[in-house]
């Protein structure tokens, strides 16, 4: 069965966009935390758990919201999976957690930071928010790899258990952040091209 890219989105330090259309510009030069809050508001979200998440999970949850917000996916929960790739992994939060344990005079390891010191937690947060009970995998590579995301997605889609997949590239560092997501379905409506490695690369690079 052929698969298509049915939505894509991006958040970075200058903008947020859906299907190539910018809906937020960081004109005030907001820092990470404030940008995430601004995008949350623009998306009209009302999800208090959001404020408990680390930055990487917030970014991922916003990215998923951009794609899934107005779509009525009719698949069953266990038929929708999430694949992610990151190069920074959870290091931004690892450093924050490390600060809670690095001073023996002020040693209070934080459980709510520790739980986010795994990069795949963002998929758990997206899964909970959107009730997605399908496959998940998290790769950590030096940069965006369209062929790796394609190969893994293709493997899952070909064998049939997964009807839709959210593919994500998420990175947060001290000075920068990026979230790029695409939705793959076997639905020809509203399509932004056939699901191929080169099309993913094109969408990632060209926007």
């Amino acid at each position, binding site marked *: 069965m052929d698969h298509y890219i049915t939505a894509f989105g991006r958040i970075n330090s200058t903008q947020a966009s859906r299907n190539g259309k910018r809906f937020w510009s960081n004109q005030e030069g907001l820092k990470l935390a404030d940008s995430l809050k601004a995008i949350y508001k623009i998306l009209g979200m009302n999800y208090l758990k959001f404020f408990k998440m680390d930055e990487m999970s917030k970014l991922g949850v916003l990215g998923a919201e951009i794609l899934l917000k107005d779509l009525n996916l009719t698949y069953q*929960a*266990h038929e929708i999976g*999430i694949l992610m790739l990151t*190069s*920074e*992994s959870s*290091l931004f939060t*690892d*450093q924050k*957690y*490390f600060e809670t*344990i*690095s001073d*023996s005079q002020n*040693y209070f*390891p*934080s*459980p709510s930071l*520790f*739980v986010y*010191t*795994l*990069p*795949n*937690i963002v*998929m*758990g*947060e997206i*899964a*909970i928010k*959107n*009730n*997605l*009970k*399908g*496959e*998940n*995998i*998290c*790769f*950590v*590579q*030096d940069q965006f790899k369209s062929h*790796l995301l394609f*190969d*893994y997605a293709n*493997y899952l889609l070909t*064998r049939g*258990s997964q009807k839709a997949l959210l593919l994500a590239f998420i990175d947060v560092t001290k000075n920068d952040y990026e979230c790029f997501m695409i939705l793959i379905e076997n639905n020809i409506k509203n399509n932004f091209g056939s699901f191929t490695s080169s099309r993913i690369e094109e969408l990632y690079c060209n926007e």
Partner: protein
Amino acid sequence: MQEIYLIGESMISALGSSLEIHQEKITQNSSGLQIHSLGISETELPLGLLNWALLENDFQALKLNETYSRFEKLMVLAAQQAVAKAGIDPSSPNCIFIISTTKGNIELLDPKHPLHDQSSRIHLWSSAQQISRYFNNPNEPMVISNACVSGVMALNWGAELLRMKKYETAIVIGGDIISHFVLSGFQSFKSLSAKACKPFDRERDGLSLGEASACIVFSRTQLADIALLAGASHNDANHISGPSRTAEGMYYAVKDAISYAEIDLNQIDSISAHGTATPYNDEMEAIGLQRLGLQNVPTHSLKGFWGHTLGAAGIIESAALAWSMRVNALLPTCGFKELGVSVPIEISDTISYKPIHYALKLASGFSGINSALIFKKS
């Protein structure tokens, strides 16, 4: 589904650094967990620590000098052992390295660490490159960091890459070491037991952490008695740090894996559970096994031997499972005495022998993810 063969394995844990010592200790039902006091809090805890002083001889024999972190040395050693058994060329372009770890070189965050200045090496991809470069492998290593299911998922992906004919062989290495970072985190989570962990037992009250490294080498063409047939994973979408009460994700993961393996649930002869010995995990697995109709299939957890070894867990436990299939052994669950889950499942407490044709490996992890693998003996 095409069979992908296991042609070399290695296990390095608190039990020792050879396959033979693991087989001996598991047969004797003898735990490697010992009381240690570590970290700033210096609480006495049972841990599955490696004998680093002894391992140093192995590292030196492999010329692993101080430019390698102890995590990388351990991973290289595990790979070296498995590659030697498999008799393959790890420098071949037809060979791929897949690394499974949760925290890799996290110790490098500490400014006092000698490799702290090697800032890129704290990145899992960079550390993975250091490992595969040792073997002069020309391909970019893949890193899977998916909490406690990392190892199981890395094995599944390694096998799948061979099915896709992208490579001839895959070297799948899993490892994590006990760092102050990880230990303090699990302490803050109150998930560590004061006694050596007791999977599925009435008195179980938490997990024991362990450090380990293990490697499985896969081949598409070089036949072997044990093969990986299929695997699958599903998220519970329930809670980021607690399993589903209904074993939702585990149920679908096993269902899918069985269906891709093209076998029936009633063909499973042996189950290697995740079995961390936390109250919720073991209860969830028991419920899942019952939902699947697998409550009478002999099930073991190996965490009582070497602790919860995080990124190594899926690989070291699969390596042990593969050996148990070869010798037709149902493995003991070290630390288990009396069933303490709400549904009756069949936990093996001592080693016993029975023909094993198909076995199921389970794993579950933070973020709500559950994975399953199906192995076959021919």
